[in-house]
């Protein structure tokens, strides 16, 4: 029994976890605790170390340095078959020589679960992913989406303490991917199992996760809930990687003002020392475009010319040329939206609460 005031044991704990391949540092001194029952995503571009981190948790790579715990137990050097985790692989890795039933039963049989008991649990797992009828087929006879679900059933049937998912939806087409996102999320909530989900798709991470860890070049840059990641990115990379962003270069002039690259001054309280080089993060949907006007009604503003107009159905994206850079602004396509044409002289304005600032 845990002391009521003691912090609960994290499902996965990474402390100073480092992985080097020769001279290349794939993962650099990661500090991370993933809570029991959490849906945690590791997000980053390819080669950022997210998959290596996942493989270390699975036991498919051994850490060079640091500690790795699963529910408090140090597992850093245990082989994969001695860890209470299971993995859904990117290419599913279903055994081609076994039928679906035997694929799903594999983990149970290896743990010494009796044939009868295993069969019953396999049946339940197949029902859970709604492929109860497929037991006698071979993996090659199933579609990509079905194979994906079998891979999920094959992992979950073992009731792992932590489920690891390595870009499991990457090979599916958009519609199926969105459907599977919903299914995964509700499955996770139902089972209460900790999910560690690796993806390079920021939208996927934002949609599904309780918390997201953004990785870049082996470093874990930021760990926060989706809203915080989007609203308050800790640096340029995170701001740029998550969602679309305009980064307006500038310098801190005084406590409440930032001087943009063209000399325009905008009011913004940062708390950063005077003279710090910064970038103002302006999301395309946070600004509005109006015909050139002198009075910005107390909003921050810059002047520019519309270079191009892209109609996206639910919204319209204006690319606007400022004196020193181009920015994108997205307006929702409402019946009362007044569409502006390319070449129009406009003012881009935003509420000062709509932007955040990162140090360069």
């Amino acid at each position, binding site marked *: 029994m845990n002391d009521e005031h003691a912090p609960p044991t994290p499902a996965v704990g990474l402390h100073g976890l480092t992985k080097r391949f020769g001279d290349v540092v794939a993962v650099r001194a990661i500090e991370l605790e993933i809570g029991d029952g959490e849906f945690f995503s590791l997000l980053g571009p390819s080669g950022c170390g997210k998959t290596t981190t996942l493989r270390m948790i699975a036991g498919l790579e051994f850490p060079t340095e640091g500690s790795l715990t699963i529910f408090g137990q140090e597992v850093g050097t245990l082989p994969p078959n001695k860890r209470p985790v299971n993995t859904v692989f990117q290419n599913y890795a*279903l055994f081609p020589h076994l039928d679906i039933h035997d694929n799903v039963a594999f983990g149970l049989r290896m743990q010494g679960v009796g044939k009868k008991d295993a069969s019953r649990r396999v049946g339940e797992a197949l029902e859970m992913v709604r492929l109860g009828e497929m037991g006698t087929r071979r993996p090659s006879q199933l579609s990509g989406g079905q194979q994906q679900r079998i891979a999920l059933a094959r992992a979950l049937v073992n009731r792992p303490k932590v489920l690891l998912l390595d870009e499991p939806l990457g090979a599916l087409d958009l519609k199926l991917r969105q459907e599977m996102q919903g299914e995964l999320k509700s499955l996770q909530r139902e089972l209460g199992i900790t999910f560690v989900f690796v993806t390079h798709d920021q939208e996927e991470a934002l949609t599904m996760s309780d918390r997201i860890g953004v990785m870049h070049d082996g470093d874990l840059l930021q760990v926060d809930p989706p809203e915080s990641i989007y609203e308050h990115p800790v640096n340029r990379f995170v701001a740029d990687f998550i969602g679309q962003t305009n980064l307006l270069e500038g310098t801190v002039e005084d406590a409440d003002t930032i001087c943009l690259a063209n000399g325009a001054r905008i009011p913004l309280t940062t708390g950063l020392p005077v003279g710090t080089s910064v970038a103002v993060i302006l999301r395309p949907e946070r600004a509005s475009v109006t015909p050139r006007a002198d009075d910005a009604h107390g909003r921050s503003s810059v002047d520019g010319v519309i270079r191009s107009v892209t109609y996206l159905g639910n919204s319209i994206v204006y690319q606007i040329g400022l004196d020193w850079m181009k920015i994108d602004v997205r307006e929702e396509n409402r019946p009362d939206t007044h569409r502006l044409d390319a070449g129009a002289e406009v003012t881009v304005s935003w509420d000062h609460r709509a932007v955040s600032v990162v140090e360069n």
Partner: protein
Amino acid sequence: MTVAETADTAIVIDEGVAAATPEFERAAERAKARRGFLIALPAYAYLVLFFATPLVIVAVYSFATRNRFGATELRDWNLESYRRLGDSLVRDIVFRSLWLALLTTLICLVVSYPFAYFLATRSPLVRNVMLVFVMIPFWSNFLVRNFAWRVLLGNDGPVSRVSELIGFGETRILFTPTAVVLGLVYGFMPFMILPLYAAIERIDLGLVEASRDLYASGWQTFRRVLLPLSMPGVIAGSILVFVPSLGAYVTPEILGGAKTTLLGSYIVTQFLTARNWPVGAALSFVLMIVMLFATIIYFRKGGRTL
């Protein structure tokens, strides 16, 4: 009525079009088959001339009669030669040959599999270099290599010397079945390694990781995933080693003693020394049939496990 008539006409037209197409298709298919046959003709001709024809001659001779002077007479067709195969002498030779061939195949398999797996999991450069090393023995004459083993295994050869040095005393390996098996394993090992390598190389190693992730130990992963998936290589390699081992002549002649006559030597003796061609032919023919059936059964079984 008019409507029905129109419909009939339409059907007739459809049939006309439909009939023209298969005709054209068939002609194209025939032309393609003809071209394919022409390309394959040299190989066909070679096989018919130098494989099928001698095979028929061997079959015919096996039913012929041997006269008092040791000449073969192609008349009085009989099964006497086949009856001779039941002699205890021949039976012993057959079982000894089968046993040594089986042992050779097993040793080759057990030794080659880890090597082939190691090879298949290296970088392309290392693989190629090591594959060349596997092939290098082929660059020198098979006969010469067998005589080299004679030197190695001789009673005062290097193997014996080393054995003496570490206190096991002089070895007496040469001219024993052990020497024959050693020579056969040495000679045919590459034929086991190459198909195994080709089969293992094709396996997605992600499956090995998946197996380990699903609580399988290293051994269980080998038993449940690697071995079944590499079965085509195991079967092909085993046939390629077993068949020539069973009929081997050079290695048993050079490394085996007088007591370890094997099938190959016995057949040669029948043809050259005993001058009993029908018996030699009958034994050759039976051996061939047995190998053929073994191969077919093996492939059938292998085909099902995949």
